[in-house]
């Protein structure tokens, strides 16, 4: 269904734009709603050209009223449209959590399936650019804790497009979380999409299973290149559904698991992965499951401080090597 059949090097943000265009193209019921997503083309230019191409009835600029327009997206989804609503920064779920948590994800269940809510909550995250404590949070753990919400976090150019399309086609609510630090990243736009809900072994290896998603995939792959240990890097792609089986299979082979994410570590999504691996792979683990993530502090503005908190390829490699060293 993609508009690009051949493999061409594309930027992550262009791939999102392609995904949006494809989604709008393939289904008339798809609309895009958000602050300055229309005529202005988005503050990061991600939605550029869509307003011109699909018109102001399908690509709709909203006032600064997240609770209102995100809720309207949910209502529209309940009544025959398939909205993609943009929440400009993921931090802003603080002003529109209700339509996500108490409406979109509960109405289908509460009505025993009489209603369905096919909506995509599109948002971006990504620390590392001094955006400050209110514009740098990765809050996927909060969303993944809400029953009924699928949560996808594309880490590659291909997934930026394909997971968006899958999210739009899904009959229920999906949070699609971009990472703005990946916007400029170039990659091959592959055909033959992996379904939503399948993890991908981004790099095979033997010593340590490294589980990650979103931006930190790049860091993990860098760590794998330089590390003395052989790392198997798994890109989860979605937290819900969670393809934990792929993690188990790898962990059973390596006996060592490292979970890496950009979000704050405490009560983060990595804990769930660690808890499950610790439970299911218990007998085969050679070392404890460890995590590399951001310490539990708000993100400071100063670039050096910020950098010191985020997971780095060096820290990932060191943690992986540590696991090999301590293995029983």
């Amino acid at each position, binding site marked *: 269904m993609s508009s690009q059949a051949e493999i061409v090097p594309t930027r992550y943000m262009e791939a999102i734009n392609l995904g949006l265009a494809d989604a709008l193209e393939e289904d008339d019921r798809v609309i895009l709603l958000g602050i300055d997503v229309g005529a202005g083309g988005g503050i990061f230019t991600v939605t550029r050209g869509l307003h011109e191409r699909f018109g102001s009835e399908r690509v709709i600029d909203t006032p600064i*009223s997240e609770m209102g327009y995100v809720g309207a*997206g949910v209502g529209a989804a309940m009544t025959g449209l398939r909205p993609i609503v943009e929440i400009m920064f993921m931090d802003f779920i603080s002003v529109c959590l209700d339509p996500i948590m108490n409406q979109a994800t509960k109405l289908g269940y*509460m009505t025993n399936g009489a209603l369905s809510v096919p909506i995509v909550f599109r948002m971006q995250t990504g620390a590392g650019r001094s955006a400050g404590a209110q514009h740098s949070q990765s809050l996927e753990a909060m969303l993944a804790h809400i029953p009924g919400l699928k949560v996808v976090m594309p880490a590659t150019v291909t997934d930026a497009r394909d997971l968006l399309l899958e999210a739009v086609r899904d009959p*229920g609510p999906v949070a699609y979380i971009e990472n703005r630090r990946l916007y400029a990243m170039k990659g091959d736009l592959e055909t033959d999409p992996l379904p939503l809900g399948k993890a991908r072994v981004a790099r095979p290896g033997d010593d340590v299973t490294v589980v990650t998603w979103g931006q930190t995939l790049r860091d993990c792959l860098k760590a794998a290149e330089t590390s003395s240990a052989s790392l198997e890097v798994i890109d989860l792609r979605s937290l819900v559904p969670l393809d934990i089986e792929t993690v188990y299979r790898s962990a059973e082979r390596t006996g060592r698991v490292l979970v890496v994410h950009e979000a704050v570590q405490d009560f983060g999504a990595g804990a769930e992965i660690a808890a499950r691996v610790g439970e299911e792979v218990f007998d085969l683990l050679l070392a404890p499951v460890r995590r590399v993530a951001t310490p539990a502090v708000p993100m400071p503005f100063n670039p050096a401080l910020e950098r010191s908190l985020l997971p780095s390829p060096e820290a990932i490699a060191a943690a992986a090597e540590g696991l090999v060293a301590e293995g029983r």
Partner: protein
Amino acid sequence: MALIRAFETRVSELYRDGEIPGFVHTSLGQEAVAAGVCGALREDDYMATTHRGHGHVLAKGADVDGMMAELFGRATGLCGGKGGSMHVADPARGILGANAIVGAGMPLITGAGLSSKLLGQGRVAVAFFGEGAVNQGTFHEALNLCAIWDLPVIFACENNGYAEFSANADMTRVASVAGRTAAYGVHAETVDGNDVAAVHEATDRAVERCRSGEGPVVLELMTYRWHGHYEGDAQPYKPEAEAQEWRDRDPLILAERALVESGAATADELAAVRAAAEARIDAATEAARQAPDPAPEEAFAHVFAG
């Protein structure tokens, strides 16, 4: 109206007797709002309501058996027993649901209005909400959205004077809800919410405006909550005289009186209507009592769509 009255009266008793679980908020004394507004709508028009939504849902055409069974939490309920009083819905009749989050229905109905407009369906979308919900940001955001997008949405504010234990006059300097809507450039009317004909006529006018593309309308329907906020609330905060005054303006009796005076019905016919409503509720109650609970595996159904 007679049916709503009978339903709510019975629900109140059943709740007191422990037959209905959860929280229950009845709309006794407010029946003219439900009947007047919903009576002016098409079956395919959309409607969203609140925690106090039984009357609206019934007036919009939901099956009485399904409704009662839902309050009992039965498998035969409108939501298979998984929604309950505060979440009862019937999308096939445009009923997008009651809602336990104050103010949440207004953005949802904005979306329904958007669907109707973009899909060219000519359906009107109505949000019921209380005057207390006007102080939520969602009222402000949703009404503004409907205004700039010229959506066919009716904001039906059921002003019963109180939000829980709090009088409206203590919670805003501008006690008239209609008086607060000039901020959005929308048409608003204040209507006697205990006069079903007046409510119906005002809704007719609002529907016409909506269907002709002029955008949203706010209807402020002045009424009164007879019972406590929830069943069991003794309402010490209400002046007795005030409560009495409103009870004297029982919307059902007012409606019956008007029908008799206009010659549209006789007292006997009206008594028969009331009796039929009672019988209907008896039957629904009995059916709900006999109905099975949902099967255990239903707890896991419909978490994800599709």
